[in-house]
């Protein structure tokens, strides 16, 4: 079989590009991802409740057989278990002024709130945002529904949060766990 000739210089350039430039550039520019991993216990979930209260509430919700909501602390937040998921909601009502933040802005705000609450931390995840204007007789608002996937590429378990962000801030979130 006939052989083909490949200039050595080309081979060296190719190897340098793929073995040196590619990995180095990926490491250098590795700073534009949302750095999150979900944790659903271990610190305050809501700003209004204490660490211990929230941990106890989540433990209670996980342990309980029924889906009765559990209200704890002075914050008025409700924790319950629906279809195997833990849900947290507040009694806030959405105000009239629509939000004027972009989807990415909303994502950042929600992630910051979730971080501050200790719900998410650490590595990266995927975040998707939907945005809807809706109104009723009593109020109108823009609702951002943000799905955050705590999915490490090599992690078998997928953790996710479905967060709803309204004019009042983080309105509710649902933790999905496997």
């Amino acid at each position, binding site marked *: 079989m006939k052989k*083909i000739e490949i200039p050595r210089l080309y081979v060296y350039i190719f190897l340098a590009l793929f073995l040196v430039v590619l990995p180095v550039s990926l490491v250098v520019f590795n700073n534009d991802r949302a750095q999150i991993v979900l944790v659903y216990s271990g610190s305050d979930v809501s700003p209004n409740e204490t660490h211990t209260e929230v941990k106890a509430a989540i433990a209670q919700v996980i342990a309980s057989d029924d889906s009765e909501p559990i209200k704890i602390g002075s914050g008025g937040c409700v924790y319950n278990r629906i279809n195997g998921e833990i849900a947290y909601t507040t009694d806030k009502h959405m105000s009239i002024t629509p939000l004027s933040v972009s989807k990415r802005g909303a994502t950042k705000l929600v992630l910051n709130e979730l971080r501050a609450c200790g719900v998410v931390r650490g590595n990266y995840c995927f975040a998707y945002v939907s945005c809807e204007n809706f109104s009723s007789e009593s109020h109108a608002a823009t609702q951002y529904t943000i799905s955050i996937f705590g999915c490490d590429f090599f992690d078998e378990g997928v953790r996710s949060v479905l967060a709803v962000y309204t004019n009042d801030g983080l309105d509710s979130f649902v933790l999905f766990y496997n």
Partner: protein
Amino acid sequence: MKTFKVSKMFAAIIAGFLVLFATVLMIFASNFAMSSYYDIPINPLIMALFSFFAIAVAVWLVLKIFAYSKKGSALFFAACLLTGIASESYGIYSDKISTGVFGIFGALLIITALVFGVFSLYRSKNKVMCAVIEAVFGAVGLFLTVGAFILLTKESITKSAWILLVFPICILLIALTSAAKRLLSKLGRALKAVTLLLAVVALISYSAAFSSALTCTYNYVTALKLPTALITSAYTDGDILFHFDFIGERAYISADEVGDHTSKLTHSYFSNKINFSEYPAEKEYYFQNRG
């Protein structure tokens, strides 16, 4: 220049490996892009760029392998194209939206076959064929350049969409410099360098547009055509762009990823306009359980 002498079989295996490597890079690029905040994420851009570069090297190797065999070239073109179509079809069939490895591997094989076909025809030195190829590329480049200019005048388009203007201009200029190189043999070497430079710029800008598309969709095939689809939409839409709706495709997340909820997502591509998507499942769930 010193050279390595390698068998054609070995070169073919390397070319195949490069296409597989490009596929893996694309998958990583998609995963990275989805978690990025930026319109044009850098990391996926680098991965997409190297992925397309790997395809270019694979095509170059195959062109060398079949340099003196028209029959071999035709067979390779047909085999590569058919395998690509079969792989992509299976990807679409199995994943519904061509997000899997078969989908992108098929798409890259089709790109390899088409680029190889065009270069093989151009290298045949047939004047009519060369002129036709240059004319087609020139017309496509001009059409997309004008489209990109119109697109950038729209209110809803973000500033970073200027990247969509770069690669059509490069395609147009490549067609012009190729024609000039063929007709003005004295300037051949200089024009060849210019053409190569333009090709590199085109590759970088398309990779940027593609990586941005990957932030909007898991669907690689959609992401591949999204830059040109958005430019083309400039001719038909008014000030309001419909993006995925206009193109007729949406990004879906499989229900497995979000538990019992099926999420439909419509992201904006280089647009300030908020897309209003329907989320019946999440909406209903939210209002049922918000206490």
